């Protein structure tokens, strides 16, 4: 079935091929239509993503404003919808400064290197029955590989700008992003064990019951790691406004800053798309509403939860963040993989899991997850804050006179 949006490489290729063929380019129609389809699809994909990022920044600012008893942007256009465009125009018109002692090549390249992987991820997201690249059969592996470029980009930004705040931020970022890739990969691995495929579309389709219900622990591990990968609160050590001024992007201005922020605000969109595919059943839903709409609705729910967390929680310290990745999260990820492997080994018949099997798994896993998380909170967390009455110091004590 062709997607209603026609955002599919094969469809585009056939369209162009037909066009070139009728125009009389029989000999070169193949490579010409191949190139034309690629360019036009990239153009559409990039612009769609940039537009949705613009809308997302509006959504984020409005939502967080509501959390903070404010109104948020409401001056430009209806409900302030044109605010992101006004911001972008302002940023483009600003002077693009490069610090004198900066490493100019690295400094200029950093925003591009940061933006590119985020843009590339969207090519393998199956919003509908197909993706932008048709079906890439190693979709999730591609995502894991391409996201690890982020840490290099952030380090480039910090190193290139030769600013102490920036270098501190990017050092933190490099350490944190590398660490959190491991729990993220563990979360993804457990999905792969159930779906038996690396292709994003197959993963989405294999969810007879959404994987968030089948393995809540895996979802928790993946979500925590993904939040750290985007460096959102409580893991926003890369910028940590109250500590480092602005972190790795301190020296950036003008269009470079705009691109950095584009990449940063694109990350939640892309991540929520990946979460939707891996854990929320992709475009599954009931019939009058088409698949892509379901996909976008689920993305919105994930984004809203991210914003909710962002607007309520304080930030962890860098050593606590590293400890959280390597101790509880890594352990939970391993436990989750072990559980899923064991269960699917027992339940799987001819390499397939039926809906009943998944129901059984989800029942076992929910109980184990709740127990596991309670144990974890008791080991790593602070017990509820009940302390005995404080004992007044004997030094300079006003004692009984003070009643």
């Amino acid at each position: 079935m062709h997607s209603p949006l026609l955002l599919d490489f094969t469809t585009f290729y056939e369209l162009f091929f037909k066009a070139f063929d009728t125009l009389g380019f029989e000999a070169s129609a193949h490579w010409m239509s191949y190139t034309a389809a690629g360019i036009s699809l990239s153009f559409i994909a990039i612009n769609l993503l940039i537009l949705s990022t613009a809308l997302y920044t509006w959504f984020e600012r409005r939502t967080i404003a509501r959390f903070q008893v404010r109104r948020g942007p409401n001056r430009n256009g209806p409900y302030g919808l044109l605010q992101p465009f006004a911001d972008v125009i302002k940023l483009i018109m600003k002077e693009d400064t490069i610090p004198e002692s900066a490493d100019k090549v690295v400094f200029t390249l950093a925003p591009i290197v940061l933006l590119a992987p985020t843009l590339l991820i969207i090519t393998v997201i199956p919003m509908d029955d197909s993706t932008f690249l048709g079906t890439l059969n190693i979709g999730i592996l591609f995502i894991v590989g391409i996201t690890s470029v982020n840490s290099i980009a952030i380090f480039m930004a910090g190193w290139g700008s030769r600013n102490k705040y920036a270098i501190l931020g990017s050092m933190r970022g490099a350490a944190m992003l590398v660490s959190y890739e491991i729990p993220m990969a563990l979360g993804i691995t457990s999905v792969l064990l159930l779906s038996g495929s690396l292709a994003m579309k197959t993963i989405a389709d294999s969810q007879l019951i959404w994987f968030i219900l089948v393995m809540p622990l895996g979802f928790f591990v993946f979500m925590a790691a993904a939040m750290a990968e985007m460096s959102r609160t409580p893991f926003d050590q890369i910028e940590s406004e109250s500590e480092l001024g602005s972190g790795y992007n301190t020296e950036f201005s003008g269009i470079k800053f705009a691109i950095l922020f584009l990449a940063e605000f694109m990350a939640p969109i892309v991540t929520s798309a990946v979460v939707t595919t891996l854990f929320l059943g992709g475009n599954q839903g009931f019939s009058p509403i088409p698949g892509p709409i379901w996909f976008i609705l689920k993305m919105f729910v994930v984004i809203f939860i991210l914003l909710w967390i962002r607007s309520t929680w304080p930030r962890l310290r860098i050593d606590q963040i590293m400890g959280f990745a390597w101790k509880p999260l890594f352990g939970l990820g391993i436990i989750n993989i072990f559980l899923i492997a064991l269960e699917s080994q027992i339940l799987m018949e001819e390499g397939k899991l039926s809906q009943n099997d998944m129901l059984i798994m989800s029942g076992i896993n929910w109980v184990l997850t709740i127990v596991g998380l309670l144990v974890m909170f008791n080991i790593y967390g602070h017990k509820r804050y009940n302390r005995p009455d404080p004992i007044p110091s004997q030094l300079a004590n006003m004692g009984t006179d003070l009643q």
Partner: protein
Amino acid sequence: MNTLRTEPITINLGPQHPSTHGVFRLRVTFDGEEIVDLEPVFGYLHRGTEKLAETRNYTQIITLTDRMDYVASMSNNLAYVRTVESLANISVPERAQYIRVICAELQRIASHLMATGFLLNDLGALATPLVYCFREREKILDLFEMLCGARITLSYMRPGGVFQDAPEEFWHALNTTVTDLPHFFDEIESLISTNEIVLARTRGVGILTDEQAIANSVSGPNLRAARVKWDLRKSNTYEVYDRLKFDIPIGHEGDTYDRYLVRILEMRESVKIIAQCVEQIDTGPIRSNTPFFIRPPAGEAYEAIEGPKGELGFYMVSDGGVAPYRCKVRAPSFLNLTPLKEMITGWKMGDLITILGSIDIVLGEVDR
């Protein structure tokens, strides 16, 4: 074992930095993320308040005190007018004393709300708790507006009383605020006091022991968080505090969390004090017959009150003229910064900001 050579880096934190609460500057030496050395640099907001006071008459100086601790100008006014009264032997009518206590306690709540909000902001909570605290602070500022028309730089108190009597609507609004505030404290405590991340970031961080606190003449909530039960409202009672019942909350060990918690508990006590004042206050004059040009006899006086940030004292010398010969302010924010190096050294970058936030400084008062 051969490792890569590392070297400490020195960062100038401030004077333009989002979390130094103004124009405070810290020259910090980091070993990686850990702080090995720290040197505070003051003076970016120095306006010569003490010297300026020598050129103005006693009534005009009130406006100067507003601009010292600009989030608690009521308390500054009170400390100053009490010194002048002691210098010139001016008596204060009872109703004025009650209104002064109400104002001082309202100002304490406003100041502590701001301290709590900014501490949470420093912890990285993206301004949400800050905005909640500001919403409540606004109500107190509205009350001040009813009293004297100003919201921040109030200049409400005068030697011998207060500027004008509180209007009728003030008492209604005060009652509403006093009833509402405890619910807000419950809300903010349920959101913050047991938050896992807040506990992880603040408990056991930046401990100031009772010996250190006393040796560095720390005062106010920071001292009480270090288990020292010391409050000028009890130990050196002034105005009508001896007729009011309230507790002095203290902390457990003097960490960042205790400093936060003591402020919350103090705000609860302040609400109780205000409620008692509203009950006890009687009609009467609000200002004794004091001239605009006060000429105190030659001599000196020191009066201190328990301000929101600690012992706020004014030392004034008179030579019999209309202006003081010398004016010296004991600024709690400034003196509370004394143990900064001991508290912060050894902690990490993120803790530095949190500890500094928990001390609750106002640069207007530090630099004067």
